[in-house]
C-alpha cells in the first residue's frame, strides 16, 4: 500500500463499494420461511421417525428382532414383543421412540432387516410437552401415513439400501427391496 492509497483510504472505499454493490444488484439469499418459500429436505434427510405400515395387514412390518434397540447409541428405542405359541413368530406389542433423546444417526433404519423403521424427510414437528415427542407405535404409524401421503412413490430411503455398500452385506429382504 503506497502513501497515496493510504491517504485516500482506497481499501476502505473498495470495501464500501462492495457492500453498495451487494445492496443494489445482488439477490437475497435468505428466504421467507414458511409463508412464501418451502424448504424441501434432500432425499435421505434424517427427520421424524415413522414405522412403515404394511399395506396388506395394516400393521407394522417390524418383526421384533431388537436390532434397532441394540444399535441405538442413545438408547431411545424400546420394544416389547410376545411370541406366538403356534407359529413361533414374534409380534410387536410396544414400540416406543423417545424423540427428544434421539440423535438422528439413522443406525436403526440401516440395521433393520425388513425396512420397518425409517427416519422420514419430514422435519417440521414440534411439541409443547415431552409427551408429544414420545412416539408410541400408533403415533409412529400415523407419522408414516402423514409422510407417505405427500411423498413420491415408490419411496426408498437411502439408508434402507445404502448406495455403494456391497450387496452381500445386506440381508435378502433388503437386497431385493425396491421401495414402498
Amino acid at each position, binding site marked *: *500500500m503506497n502513501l497515496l492509497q*493510504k491517504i485516500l*483510504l482506497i*481499501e*476502505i472505499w*473498495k*470495501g464500501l463499494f*462492495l*457492500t453498495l454493490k451487494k445492496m443494489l444488484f445482488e439477490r437475497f*439469499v435468505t428466504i421467507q420461511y414458511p409463508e412464501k418459500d418451502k424448504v424441501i*429436505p*434432500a*432425499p*435421505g*434427510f*434424517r427427520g421424524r421417525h415413522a414405522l412403515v405400515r404394511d399395506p396388506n395387514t395394516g400393521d407394522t412390518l417390524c418383526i421384533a*428382532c*431388537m*436390532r434397532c*434397540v*441394540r*444399535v441405538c*447409541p*442413545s*438408547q431411545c428405542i424400546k420394544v416389547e414383543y410376545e411370541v406366538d405359541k403356534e407359529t413361533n413368530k414374534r409380534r410387536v406389542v410396544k414400540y416406543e421412540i423417545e424423540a427428544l433423546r434421539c*440423535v*438422528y*444417526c*439413522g*443406525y436403526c433404519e*440401516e*440395521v433393520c*432387516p425388513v425396512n420397518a423403521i425409517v*427416519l422420514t424427510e419430514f422435519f417440521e414437528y414440534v411439541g409443547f410437552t415431552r409427551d408429544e415427542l414420545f412416539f408410541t407405535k400408533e403415533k409412529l404409524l400415523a407419522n408414516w401415513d402423514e409422510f407417505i401421503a405427500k411423498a413420491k412413490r415408490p419411496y426408498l430411503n*437411502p*439408508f434402507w439400501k*445404502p*448406495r*455403494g*455398500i*456391497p450387496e*452381500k*452385506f*445386506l*440381508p*435378502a429382504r433388503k437386497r431385493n427391496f425396491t421401495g414402498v
Partner: protein
Amino acid sequence: MSLYVEVVKNGNGKSESEYFTINMGPHHPSTHGVLRLVLELDGETIVKCDPRIGYLHRGVEKLAEHLNYNQTIVLSDRLDYIASAANNIAFCLAFEKLLGITPPRRARLIRTIVNEMARISSHLLWLATHALDIGAMTVFLYCFRDREWLLSIFEKVCGARLTHSYVRVGGVRLDFTQEIIDELRRFTEEFPQRILDYETLIDVNRIWLKRTRGVAVVDAETAINLGLTGPVLRGSGVPYDVRKFRPYDAYDEVEFEVPVGERGDTYDRYKVRMKELHQSNWIIKQCLDKLKEVEGEPVLAEGAPDLLLPSRIREPEPKPHPKKGFIFTGKELPVVPPGEAFASIESPKGELAVYVVSDGGPNPWRLRIRTPSFVHISAIPELAKGHMIADLVAIIGTLDVVLGDCDR
C-alpha cells in the same frame, strides 16, 4: 466503592497493586460457546487470565467405553460440531488401525472430499465469527451464505447438516450420487470468487490490519512448546501438517501446498487459513476427478464391522434370528483384536488425535481424544498476557476454538 476494585494482596498481606477482576463468560457473546475466562485487568490490559472449562463436559471418553466402535462415531459428531466429518474420520482411522482393515479407494477419496468440505465449512465459520468479533459484521453473513451451500451439500450426502455420522469403520455409509458430484463441482468453480468477497472487505483494510498485526505473536519454538497445531502453528512458520507428515485416506494421492506464515501473529494465521480455503478447494477438485476412476466400486471394506457389535451397556437381549448373510451370523463378526492404536488427523482446528485401547471386547477399553481446541484454550493465558480485552476477543477468534471440542 470497594466493589469495583479488588485489591490483590501478596504474601505479606500488603497490597501490591490494584487490579480489576472481570469474569468473561460463560455466556459472553464472543467466547464461542461456554468458555469462561477469569481476567485480572490493569486498566484494560490483561495481567492474568485463567480459563475455566468444563461447562460442556459430556464425558465422551467415559461414554465411549460403554458403546461399541461404530456407535462412538455418533459421539464424535458432537465434539467439534462445526466439522463433524473430520472427527468421524479420526475415530474411524484409529479403529481401522486396530482392526487392520483398509477402506476401498473410493471410500478413501470420498472421505478426503468430506474432510475438506468440513475444513472449508469450519474455516468459513471461523472467519465469520473472527470477523464479527473484531466488528466486521458483513463478512459474517457472507460466510454464512456460502457455508449454507456447503451444508446443503452435506445434507444431500448423508441426510444431516451438522451431525453427519457419515463415516463408518471400514468406509463410508453412503456413496456419492452424480447429483452431489455435479453440485460439488459447481461449488468448487464458484468458491474462489466468493473468497474474494471476504478479502475485499478485510484483507488490506487498515482497521483489520491494526487489529490483527502484532497481536498474540508466537514464535515457532514457543508454539511447539505450547502444543499448538494446525493453522495456528503454521502461522508461526512451522510447516507441520498431518496430511503431509502422516498421510491418511487419499492425501498421498493429491497435490496441495501447506501455507505457512512468517511472523506468527493473528494476521498471519488469518492468511494461512484463507490460503487453506483455496487449497481445500483444489483438493476437492482433484478428488472429484479421481472418483471417476473408481466408479461403481464399493465404499465399504470387506472386513468392516457391522454397526451392531454387541454392546455391554445393555441388558442381555434374546439372540437374533440366525439368517444367512454377513451381518446376521454372530460368528462371522470380526473380533476386535486386543491392543492399542493411535491415529491423528489434521482437523480444521489442528491435530485431532485418537488413542484407543482395546481388550478384545466389543467396546473400546479406553478411548482418548486429544482435541486441538483443548490445547489451544490452554495456551490462551500465555498468549493473552499484556494484551487488551479487545485483543483477547481476537485471540479467542484466531485460535478457532469450539467448546464442544474442548470439553468433550
